[in-house]
């Protein structure tokens, strides 16, 4: 305090107290924060790469970014060296030469993929089943292909933890029940849009289809390097290399599975070598039921902060040269906390040992989401007892074709569908038997939603432009997981997902009605002002 004001100190303190009490609410909006963040990341993605100088020549820095298939080179080439081949064989060099270290998008003519939803089933069971279809997408590990006999790595399912696949029959979607959980209440969730007017979209927007090069390779050429010459490999024709796997022969090592069919790499902790040397033997299976040594239950105080988990994940990716140039800000999946908070006996609640850090994929400046509205992309599992990365998934090539398709510009229809629960209505409507809960939806952002369509006898992964409506006030209490509501803006997909007679479209008394085809085309509306 200035000496000249010392005699008025008590009064000055009162003025300060009143000023503090009068501090206005700045109305800081988390939604705004996230949207601006996405905008900044988009701007960064659109910036030209910084050129780095090597003296007499400069190269774009992106040329040095390690993409998904660069790790294949790290994986494949050392194994070839082990078998005495000093140069990469021609077949495998073909594989790597087609890879890209970043995202590549090849533009095709409009409607190049045909009717996107032609031949797709539209029943409720199959719609919700499409989420489990996504969980068994080609990027998941096929245990039959593993070279060693231990359980498949724990691959996270689409939107793992946040939505239970096939849970359309329950408005109390959750995970395995604990005897100490709060009683389940039937709740009708009514979505209410409280955001700004939607901007006018262009008449067409690009749908992306992921393409893979496959593993075309001469078997005889590949096997010639292995030393396994007791069979004439040339007798096999039109072969392609589908996958390889290997393990590190050391404590706390990793096993790696490389899938050439879909250009993906999965890494997981080698379960056979979890611990040794101190007399404690860990069996090959995981979990408290199999491990001889007692595992201490995790207490809530043991759970590290999200930033520490992200640091561990970042460290692993950095150490193994996995580039994050195509990914946005990582986040930790914490949906278990929803159930934890609802549990009455928190002391005995089973807190997970492994946490997923998710790096949302970004394509053309847009973040990629799953159908439940969760950002999706590269996933790193961190074991909090070891503070170590124990798995990496969804590390894959990002090669796409794009083709433009007509968009839906009827804002009223889009908002109505959002208020009806969006593309995948997750929660069941109990009608008069349930208590009601309003869920507010904020101004949406445009993202790309990962969808799977079964066409030409294979699952095709598409990225469909969609509005992602954020939930701005999560329902208090148990079992509400949904962070956002997805509404595709591509008419083909939107019309299929909401055609009359199909899907879990609740008839809400006094609220949103199931959509039926309009009798007349909607009137053209002037572009609403963007607030």
């Amino acid at each position, binding site marked *: 305090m*200035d000496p000249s004001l010392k005699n008025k100190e008590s009064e000055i303190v009162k003025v*300060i107290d009143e000023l503090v009490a009068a501090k206005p609410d700045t109305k800081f909006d988390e939604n705004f924060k996230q949207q601006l963040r996405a905008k900044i990341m988009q701007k960064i993605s659109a910036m030209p790469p910084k050129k780095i100088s090597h003296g007499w020549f400069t190269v774009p820095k992106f040329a040095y970014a390690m993409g998904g298939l660069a790790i294949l080179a790290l994986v494949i080439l050392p194994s070839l060296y082990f078998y005495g081949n000093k140069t990469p064989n021609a077949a495998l060099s073909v594989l790597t030469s087609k890879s890209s270290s970043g995202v590549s998008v090849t533009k095709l003519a409009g409607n190049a993929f045909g009717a996107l939803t032609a031949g797709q089933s539209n029943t409720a069971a199959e719609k919700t089943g499409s989420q489990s279809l996504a969980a068994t997408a080609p990027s998941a590990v096929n245990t039959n292909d593993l070279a060693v006999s231990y359980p498949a790595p724990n691959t996270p399912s689409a939107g793992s933890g946040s939505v239970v696949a096939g849970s359309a029959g329950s408005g109390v979607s959750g995970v395995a029940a604990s005897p100490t959980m709060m009683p389940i209440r039937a709740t009708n969730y009514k979505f209410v849009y409280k955001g700004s007017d939607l901007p006018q979209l262009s008449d067409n927007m690009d749908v992306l289809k992921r393409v893979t090069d496959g593993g075309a390779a001469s078997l005889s050429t590949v096997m010639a390097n292995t030393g396994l010459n007791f069979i004439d490999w040339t007798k096999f024709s039109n072969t392609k290399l589908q996958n390889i796997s290997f393990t590190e022969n050391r404590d706390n090592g990793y096993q790696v599975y490389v899938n050439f069919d879909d250009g993906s790499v999965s890494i997981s902790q080698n379960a056979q070598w979890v611990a040794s040397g101190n007399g404690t033997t860990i069996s090959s299976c995981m979990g408290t039921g199999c491990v001889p040594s007692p595992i201490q239950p995790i207490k809530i105080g043991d759970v590290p902060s999200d930033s520490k988990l992200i640091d561990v994940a970042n460290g692993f990716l950095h150490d193994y040269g996995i580039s994050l140039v195509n990914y946005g800000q990582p986040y930790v999946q914490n949906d278990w906390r929803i159930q934890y908070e609802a549990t009455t006996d928190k002391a005995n609640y089973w807190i997970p040992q492994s946490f997923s850090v998710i790096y949302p994929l970004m394509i053309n400046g847009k973040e990629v989401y799953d159908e439940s509205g969760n950002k999706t992309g590269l996933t790193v599992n961190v074991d909090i007892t070891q503070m170590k990365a124990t798995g990496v998934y969804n590390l894959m090539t990002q090669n796409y074709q794009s083709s433009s398709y007509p968009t839906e510009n009827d804002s009223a229809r889009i908002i109505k569908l959002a208020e009806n629960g969006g593309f995948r209505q997750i929660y069941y409507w109990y009608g008069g038997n349930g208590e009601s809960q309003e869920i507010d939806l904020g101004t949406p952002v445009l993202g790309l939603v990962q969808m799977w369509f079964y066409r030409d006898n294979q699952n095709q992964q598409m990225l469909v432009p969609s509005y992602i409506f954020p939930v701005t006030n999560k329902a208090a209490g148990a079992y509400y997981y949904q962070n956002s509501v997805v509404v595709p803006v591509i008419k083909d997909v939107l019309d299929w997902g909401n055609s009359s007679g199909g899907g879990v479209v609740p008839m809400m008394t006094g609220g949103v009605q199931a959509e039926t085809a309009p009798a007349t085309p909607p009137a053209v509306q002037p572009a609403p002002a963007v607030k």
Partner: protein
Amino acid sequence: MNKPKNSMQEEQKILDDCKKGNLKEFGALYDKYVRKIYDFIFFKTYHKETAEDIASQTFLKAVENVKNFDSRKGTFSSWLYSIARNTVIDYYRTRKFSANIEDFWDLSEENTIEEDIDRKENLEKIKAHLSKLTSAQREIIIMRVWQEMSYAEMAEILGKSEESCRMMFCRTLAKLKSEMPLALFILLLIKIIWI
């Protein structure tokens, strides 16, 4: 309260990465400062949407120019706040107001923007007193009392010494106290809080 040393080191590492072209690291700086910058701008505009708009411009300018940021000339924090302050001034100038408008309080009755309706009535009650302060005095009060900044932080941002900031703060408080009977001040503030 000074920033912990390891926090400054982490911030410097992020800035070094950004300058090398790894702009994705800017996200960490954004997360650290977005709330502070937004509040800083809000206390100059008293309008949510305007504050969001100006905060957006601030960070977009920052990310465009972070590669040119020179830590020898000042901290990142002070650089970011100066961008925010200048963007607020530009905001008022582009609306053809007087060049001396630095914040909402400098607006005369004739220059009132329609968005001010939000708290116009409430702010009228306190405006008569805070408007008598200079923009520098208002800034000091708001940064110290509402944004809880240390004198060291304020000095960095305002380009003054810590002692200078401390003295200005004390004298501004004394001025506020002398120009408004405390009972009336409390009454006015109570009305603002409950409206």
